[in-house]
């Protein structure tokens, strides 16, 4: 009997807590506008809450599709609030600017999701407070900035900067001639296929994973996360990996010779490679202890510096 009473009480608690305080009514409204950009124009979007998808395509039109949404218990209030969301589009000097204007942006109970198609040579600047940003097939420069949400960039040819506070960053099949920065505070950074001269990737507590990058200068830094790099090194490339308490793992093909300097204060260093003392031709073995590794492999054309405080460092052969 006591079991039955307990079960009934538990059921009541679950039923009560799972009920919403008041049923929400969602009202939505579509927004659509087409603008024009000449070659190498700029598309600049600032949103407040909502997801953004931007795709580069053939043609010179900028097609902006948006859905405004508000959820409130009272449908009349929801409709009134919906009318307060203003999407402003301005075209000026080969630049299209889109701004979402809402009253009380910090706690406005509404959102705007954007789906935008831009000419593929356009530069894109996109910014939002909450929501995800997905950009693909953009040949112009891309800068994306989100506070609470993730950023992904695929098929972007002039990646410039990706930044978020609480979300992940994903880069795939991208490139850049100018320096690239990607930084997040608590999220992870995942790179699969990146061709660039200078790249800087940072996170405070997230992991950073890099695969198949062709980068001349790579700086990767985290405080608490792990750092993983898998692929080839560029000849004459410079690579710096730095983590305080996370582990650093490099899985290298060994096709490119490199000079390595690895140090950890209280972790361990391990390597599959056999190192010489210095540059090509130098005799004698490299210096390898439990916490230090210094030496040259092959022609030592690339430079790899690995530093951890309490994390482990490993160099494996693919």
């Amino acid at each position, binding site marked *: 009997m006591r079991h039955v009473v307990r079960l009934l009480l538990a059921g009541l608690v679950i039923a009560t807590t799972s009920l919403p305080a008041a049923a929400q009514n969602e009202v939505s409204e579509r927004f659509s506008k087409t603008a024009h950009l000449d070659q190498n124009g700029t598309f*600049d979007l600032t949103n407040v809450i909502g997801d953004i998808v931007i795709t580069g395509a053939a043609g010179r039109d900028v097609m902006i599709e948006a859905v405004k949404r508000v959820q409130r218990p009272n449908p009349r209030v929801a409709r009134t609030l919906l009318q307060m969301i203003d999407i402003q589009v301005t075209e000026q000097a080969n630049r299209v600017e889109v701004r979402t204007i809402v009253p009380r942006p910090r706690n406005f109970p509404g959102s705007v999701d954007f789906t935008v198609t831009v000419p593929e040579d356009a530069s894109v600047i996109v910014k939002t407070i909450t929501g995800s940003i997905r950009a693909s097939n953009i040949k112009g420069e891309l800068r994306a900035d989100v506070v609470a949400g993730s950023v992904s960039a695929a098929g972007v040819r002039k990646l*410039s900067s990706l930044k978020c*506070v609480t979300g992940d960053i994903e880069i795939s099949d991208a490139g850049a001639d100018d320096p690239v920065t990607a930084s997040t*505070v608590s999220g992870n950074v995942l790179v699969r296929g990146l061709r660039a001269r200078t790249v800087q990737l940072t996170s405070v507590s997230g992991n950073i994973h890099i695969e198949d990058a062709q980068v001349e200068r790579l700086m990767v830094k985290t405080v608490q996360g792990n750092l993983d790099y898998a692929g080839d090194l560029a000849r004459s490339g410079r690579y710096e990996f730095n983590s305080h308490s996370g582990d650093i793992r490099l899985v290298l093909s060994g096709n490119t010779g490199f000079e390595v300097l690895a140090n950890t204060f209280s972790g361990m260093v391990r390597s599959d490679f056999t190192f010489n003392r210095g540059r090509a031709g130098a005799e004698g073995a490299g210096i390898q202890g439990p916490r230090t590794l210094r030496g040259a492999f092959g022609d030592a054309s690339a430079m790899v510096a690995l530093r951890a405080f309490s994390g482990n460092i490993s160099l494996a052969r693919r």
Partner: protein
Amino acid sequence: MNCQLYDDLLDDYVDGVRAADYGNDARMAAFERHLAQCAQCQAVVADLTSIRIVASTLDRQIPPPRLWAKIASSLDERQRQPWWQRQLGGALSPWVAGAVAASIALLLVAGLWQQWKQPAPEPQQDISALSSEPAAVPAEQHYEQAIAGLQQLADAHNAALDPATRAVLTQNLAVIDRAINESREALVQEPASTLAQESLLDALETKVALLQDTVALASDTGAVADEPADAARELNQ
């Protein structure tokens, strides 16, 4: 030899300035005559020249793209803001917070530059000066000053951030503080450890960057967060 008389001309000389180029400037001419006979000054000039050559081969340091993006968008935003945001913008002073944060960063850079420029102090001969305290890491105090100023700003503007973002930033500042403490403890054990020193400076630098971002975020959001009563407030109930 009165080498120190010409200390202020060294930089110009290394940069290629010659007396003949400036109407036979008397002091530079005197320095050139002195240099021809002084091995010590020749060594200094050679040293500075090699530094200059090496420095010119270093990668160009470009400010993070987000810095210019932020400046540019702030300029544009100001023009685009509706009247009520513009009115509030002045009262809430996000620019002031940003300017103070930028000033702190500049002071930090200036401090580090001074540290680098100043000659190394003479080694202490007094054995009583030696203690069990870890050797002070050069530049640490500049970071500490910057952090104190930024922390004050961040605390003052934090309320403008949404609670979830604020919690993430607080947690990550704690992660960095742990790294700072671990590095300091390591320096107590091994005062000469370069690795511990580098880890400490890295962690301090990361903290400065995160606090700068916190202030910038809070200022951005704060510009519109304290909007006075409007129709939406009533409808939000």
